[in-house]
């Protein structure tokens, strides 16, 4: 199961108070559709009891905040208190929050309905947010914390992130973010030490699928920054990442990360011995063809040493020669020229043969578009 689907089904199972495994039959549904369904059901559940929450909030407003806090902790419990808090004016809710024990407040936050509590969370003072976040971290409540990230004030987010040193928590909070466009903001707030801790946790806690998947949501600068840190993890970790990319079809994400690295790190990553393995290279080309990510792969192929390029060409010219035709039709010409211009002399012949037997028309069209390109002069001569 794709890691982001797994995260979505975990959120749904929590809402439906059932076991995560019970929702596995929804694997294969579109991620956005699952999230929209969950949000719709969450609002529906809340609205079923909204009248009760409003009545209790009405009573709460009649008594001093100290008495309300006492009532909440001793009688109502965190689930009901969460509903009531969402129906109180933000100013009153904040006064009440200030009187509640940290643990109770954290539990209350777990049960807040995201849509109906957005305004309340946005209005919460940084001090209360930071206290609650600390308690939620201790409870491993990463899903709730991810919900916080989306709505709390930037100053509160900064205060919270500066205190998080648990790499596993950082990766999981990022994974559970509803709006992945917030990922740039979140990661941008982390120090290099924290970013390294997140990558170490990825290795220690089998979280590379999450890190690779999240990488696809980052802007190019952060992707490069994180990519360079990944490249410094050493061959054992890099080999493991390659296996994860192969098992979970996360090649496009990995290729994006490598493309964003600086050249030295790129050279190191693309020439890891693991990539020479037949099934790994086959999986790479298959995924690239399926996801049409040729423009991510092709710029990296000229960086491969001959020992690595040969297995790539084995797949492209012998085991899946039809993919050459697809690449010629779909990749950017400059990326194809980069590959053809860097073919070792001994490899040109088999590439020419594969082009002739599997991609005649697309090769002719490519040549017509690039008639003056020196990079293909030799191949053109071989093809006659």
């Amino acid at each position, binding site marked *: 199961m794709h890691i982001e689907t797994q995260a979505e089904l975990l959120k749904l199972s929590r809402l439906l108070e059932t076991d995560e495994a019970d929702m596995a039959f*929804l694997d294969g549904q579109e991620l956005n559709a699952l999230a929209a369904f969950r949000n719709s059901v969450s609002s529906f*559940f809340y609205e079923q*009891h909204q009248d009760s929450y409003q009545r*209790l909030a009405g*009573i709460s407003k009649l008594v001093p905040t100290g008495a309300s806090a006492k009532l909440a902790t001793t009688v109502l*419990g965190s689930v*009901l208190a969460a509903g009531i808090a969402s129906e109180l004016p933000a100013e009153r809710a904040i006064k009440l929050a200030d009187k509640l024990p940290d643990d109770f407040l954290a539990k209350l936050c777990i049960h807040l309905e995201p849509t109906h509590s957005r305004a309340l969370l946005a209005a919460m003072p940084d001090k209360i947010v930071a206290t609650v976040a600390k308690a939620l971290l201790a409870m491993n409540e990463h899903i709730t914390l991810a919900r916080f990230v989306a709505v709390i004030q930037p100053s509160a987010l900064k205060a919270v992130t500066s205190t998080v040193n648990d790499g596993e928590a950082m990766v999981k909070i990022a994974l559970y973010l509803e709006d992945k466009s917030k990922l740039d903001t979140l990661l941008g707030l982390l120090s290099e030490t924290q970013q390294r801790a997140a990558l170490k946790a990825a290795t220690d806690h089998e979280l590379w699928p999450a890190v690779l998947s999240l990488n696809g949501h980052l802007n190019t600068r952060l992707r490069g920054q994180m990519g360079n840190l990944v490249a410094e993890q050493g061959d054992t970790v890099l080999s493991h990442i390659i296996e994860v990319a192969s098992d979970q079809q996360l090649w496009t994400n990995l290729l994006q990360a490598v493309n964003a690295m600086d050249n030295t790190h790129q050279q190191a990553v693309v020439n890891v011995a693991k990539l020479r393995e037949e099934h790994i290279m086959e999986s790479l080309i298959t995924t690239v063809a399926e996801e049409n990510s040729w423009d991510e792969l092709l710029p990296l192929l000229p960086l491969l040493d001959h020992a690595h390029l040969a297995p790539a060409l084995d797949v492209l010219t012998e085991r899946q020669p039809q993919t050459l035709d697809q690449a010629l039709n779909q990749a950017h010409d400059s990326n194809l020229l980069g590959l053809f211009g860097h073919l070792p002399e001994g490899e040109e012949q088999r590439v020419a043969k594969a082009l002739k037997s599997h991609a005649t028309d697309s090769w002719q069209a490519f040549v017509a578009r690039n008639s003056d390109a020196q990079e293909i002069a030799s191949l053109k001569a071989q093809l006659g």
Partner: protein
Amino acid sequence: MSDSISTLKNKGLPADALAFIESLPADQASKLADTVLAALETKDARVEKAMNNALNVVPGPFRRPVKKMLFG
């Protein structure tokens, strides 16, 4: 349409959520609707219990007006 889907429809489950359930193969749609309905019942029971707990701590003479405020 399964009983659970009909019940959820009657209880006002939004059209987009119903459409998602109904887009699934029949056995999966039924399973998901059953789970949503069971969760709703659990939450109903929890809220009702908490409301009753709240009422029980109200001193006797005030219980009737508070009950009216809570339950209408």
